[in-house]
């Protein structure tokens, strides 16, 4: 071996290597000191900075949506409740591969392409980091299926939620309304912070009008999450404040009777307490099941409702425009009395028709062979059209309009349900500005019997009737009776809202009109004499038959041959007891034919129900 021949200086060699070892050891020491310095910078000097980052990593603030307030009728019967369900939800920002996740979930839960498209649309519209519901109301089996596959879907979870439920289904569909998914339009109106975690918002009816009160205050939960965004444990929380319970003036029994009374007719019934303005019943037919809307209505269900010729989604009590017909006559009569155009005993001869001076167009009375000589009382009791043609002609449209304006015709009643229509009480001014046409005297005549341009909603008519019943005391109709912040506290009654009392000078004038309306329900020749029969008190009422379809000169209205859609609307207004009114009812039965035959008996059923209850108590 070659090594043998080389002289090795062991002492020198070991000194050489040992020097280098010492050098290397010192160098390593320096490097380790550098590491320690680096660690000290990170862990001492920048500690706070990284501590914040670490907390941000793991601590997530989850909103705790408040429990929506329940809605009760006046007897404490639940009209809208919250029932626990499980829903499958995702937070788009926490999902790694959104497209894959959605398509895999679609397979797992057999979602249709449209469902997926809808979810994708929602994801685009939503604010960041908000839950998007993939599927409402999971069955237990579906929950189990997802739980087994949960690891595959970071950012997706089964969430236990309370979902709105309307136990009486269609009965309160329009007035109580329903909640639905918060859409883009809602988002611009709500306080984003308070609605974090809330998925649904009042869309129609009381649910919409009292949204702020029902919704409550959002709470927060600080939770520790892992890298997939799953909650590991709760750190602390601030409880949400539940929405207030809302008590309505509506009475479920009356509501039921109203719905049954209308039967197969499309139409509306509104009943209220004229003293408090409390709306006791508010029914629009046909109706629909509001529960369909809660979880997001399917396209198919929605198109059935939307495209139905009977328009079930349309709230006739608030938006249905009906000519008031003869039910306007008590108000016209009062105008005549108050403005001194007629007196209690002023008589007019009714030959069955009326002509304007110098014209030969005949304005017909509903009774073709005429009522003969009628005074004011009989003109209302028998609903003589000629009397009111004459009266309106003398009053003139603008004085009539001014007077009807006091009763809120052509204006919103201000009831606490959204999207009320204004109706229309015509004037020459209105015709000029809206239609750019002059007012014809003939139009004044038919306005006098509540036809022509006149349009009123059932709620408006009920409001006007209640002012009439209360002899000018103006109490606004109100659906909400009060609210209660929590189960333990007292009911917070909604104050009765009063408008300006009507400036009617003579108390006698009220009495004349009321007496005449009593005659309608109890007089020998009253058009609704069935209504007042067998009651311990007097009922003041007025029938109305509103023309849907204009009948040409010399043509007779033949109900048999007309298509049902063209039949007259049957209307009836009433209050009782006439001298101390507690109950006002307005019935509109679309295409019901005649007010006295169709609408008046429905009103009687309502009166029986209301006073039957009172007697029972």
């Amino acid at each position, binding site marked *: 071996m070659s090594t043998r021949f080389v002289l090795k200086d062991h002492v020198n060699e070991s000194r050489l290597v040992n020097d280098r070892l010492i050098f290397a050891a010192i160098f*390593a020491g320096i490097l380790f000191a550098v*590491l320690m310095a680096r660690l000290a910078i*990170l*862990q001492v000097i920048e500690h706070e900075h*990284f501590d914040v980052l670490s907390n941000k990593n*793991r601590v997530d603030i989850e909103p705790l949506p408040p429990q929506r307030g329940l809605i009760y009728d006046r007897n404490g019967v639940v009209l809208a409740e919250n029932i626990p369900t499980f829903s499958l939800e995702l937070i788009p920002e926490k999902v790694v591969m959104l497209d894959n996740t959605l398509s895999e979930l679609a397979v797992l839960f057999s979602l249709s392409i449209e469902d997926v498209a809808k979810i994708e649309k929602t994801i685009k519209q939503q604010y960041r980091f908000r839950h998007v519901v993939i599927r409402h109301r999971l069955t237990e089996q579906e929950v189990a299926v997802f739980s087994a596959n949960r690891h595959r879907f970071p950012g997706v979870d089964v969430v236990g939620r309370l979902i709105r439920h309307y136990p009486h289904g269609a009965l309160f569909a329009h007035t109580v309304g329903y909640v639905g998914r918060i859409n883009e339009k809602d988002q611009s109106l709500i306080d984003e912070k308070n609605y974090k975690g809330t998925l649904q918002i009042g869309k129609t009816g009381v649910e919409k009008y009292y949204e702020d009160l029902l919704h409550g205050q959002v709470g927060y939960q600080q939770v520790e999450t892992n890298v997939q965004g799953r909650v590991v444990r709760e750190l602390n929380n601030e409880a949400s404040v539940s929405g207030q319970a809302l008590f309505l003036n509506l009475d479920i029994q009356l509501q039921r009777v109203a719905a049954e009374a209308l039967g197969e007719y499309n139409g509306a019934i509104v009943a209220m307490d004229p003293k408090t303005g409390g709306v006791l019943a508010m029914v629009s037919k046909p109706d629909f099941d509001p529960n369909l809307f809660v979880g997001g209505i399917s396209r198919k269900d929605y198109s059935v409702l939307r495209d139905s010729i009977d328009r079930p989604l349309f709230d006739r009590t608030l938006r249905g425009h009906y000519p008031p017909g003869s039910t306007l006559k008590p108000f016209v009569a009062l105008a005549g009395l108050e403005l001194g155009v007629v007196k209690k005993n002023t008589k007019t001869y009714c030959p069955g028709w009326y002509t304007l001076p110098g014209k030969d167009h005949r304005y017909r009375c509903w009774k073709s062979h005429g009522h003969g000589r009628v005074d004011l009382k009989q003109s209302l009791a028998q609903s003589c059209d000629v009397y009111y043609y004459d009266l309106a002609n003398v009053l003139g449209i603008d004085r009539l309009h001014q007077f009807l304006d006091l009763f809120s015709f052509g204006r919103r009643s201000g009831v606490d349900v959204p999207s009320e229509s204004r109706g229309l009480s015509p004037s020459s001014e209105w015709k000029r500005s809206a239609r750019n046409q002059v007012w014809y005297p003939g139009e004044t005549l038919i306005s006098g019997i509540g036809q022509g341009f006149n349009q009123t909603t059932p709620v408006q008519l009920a409001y006007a009737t209640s002012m009439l019943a209360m002899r000018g005391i103006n109490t606004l109709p109100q659906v909400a009776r009060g609210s209660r912040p929590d189960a333990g506290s007292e009911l917070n009654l909604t104050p009765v809202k009063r408008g300006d009392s009507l400036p009617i000078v003579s108390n006698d004038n009220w009495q004349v009109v009321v007496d005449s309306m009593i005659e309608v329900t109890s007089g020998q020749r009253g058009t609704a004499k069935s209504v007042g029969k067998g009651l311990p008190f007097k009922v003041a009422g007025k029938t109305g038959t509103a023309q849907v379809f204009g009948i040409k000169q010399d043509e007779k209205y033949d109900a048999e041959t007309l298509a049902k859609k063209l039949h007259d609307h049957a209307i009836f207004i009433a209050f009782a007891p006439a001298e101390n009114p507690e109950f006002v009812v307005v019935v509109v039965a679309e295409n019901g034919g005649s007010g006295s035959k169709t609408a008046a008996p429905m009103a009687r059923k309502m009166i029986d129900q209301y006073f039957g209850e009172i007697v029972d108590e």
Partner: protein
Amino acid sequence: MNKQILTDRANPERWSLIRTLRVIHLDALLLFGLLSLLGVGLMILFSAGNQEVALLSRQLIRMGMAFFGLVVLANIHPDRMRDVAYWVYGAGLILLIAVLLVGEEGKGAQRWLNLGVVRFQPSELMKIAVPLLLAAYVAERPLPPILPRLFICFLMVAIPALLIAKQPDLGTALLIASSGLIVIFLSGISWAVIISFILAAASALPVLWYVMHDYQRQRVLTFLNPESDPLGSGYHIIQSKIAIGSGGLFGRGWLEGTQSQLAFLPERSTDFIFSVIAEEFGLMGVGLLLLLYLAIAGRGLYIAGQAQSSFARLLAGSISLTFLVYVFVNVGMVTGLLPVVGVPLPLVSYGGTSMVTLLAGFGILMSIHTHRRMMTS
């Protein structure tokens, strides 16, 4: 203190334990240091691995096997090792070439050779073979080596390092190159050669950039600015720094580190296990850990200093210093001082192969120390 224990004849029991260990060629101090480190490692692994006992027992089995290797090597005379140095190196080289041709891929790199029964990583063999060969080659002639031999030394280092870098496994290539270069440095070559070598290496950096893989370049870029890609390649280092920094002076406590326990920290039981220690035990904890590493390496350097041949001196020195390079690169990497090159924290990170070679190295150290001819006693 070390000397006290060694010479504490007043305590016969301790003395007999050390003597017993000596009989099977184990060094008590080194053994004590290594066992402490392995114990700490298991404790941290329990925390980093989501308290999984299965993970822990697998690691324990590896430790047992690696310790067996240590004891075997400790009982082989250093001269026998020197005799087989060329053979071991040659075999390692052939295996490295084989791995490039027929190796199996794992994590996007060809590092494994399937020998039917076991999967084997030839680069690990080179971690021992390179310093062994260089120490043997350099010690054949008087120190320091003359230039032509120095050139051959560089070739002996460069060939395996480049082959491993090609797999690609930059971390291991770096460790193997430094273990060889350390031998050359210890052999006493003149400072002029060292400085010119450093200058040459610095000027070669742009060339290195050119031949690097995309992912390696990305790592360097990420290292220079981790925030540029917080969800991609910068994620590791950002989360690691958060874990370390949030640990503070005393840490969040064992099993209490949120970065680690909630899985924000990636690779937390392997390359980034140091961040778990830093988060849960704070600056105090990592300071003590680094001291333990220094103590083990210090004992190794002492053994090198006490060695009776240049071969043993160079080999022991290289093994001890490379151990420190390991620690430095890993800690530098997780603290953001160095780019992420995939070097585990020695004897603590989860994983078998590096454990076996590291303990084999310490086995060689013990062999060197316990096979000395007792001239003084």
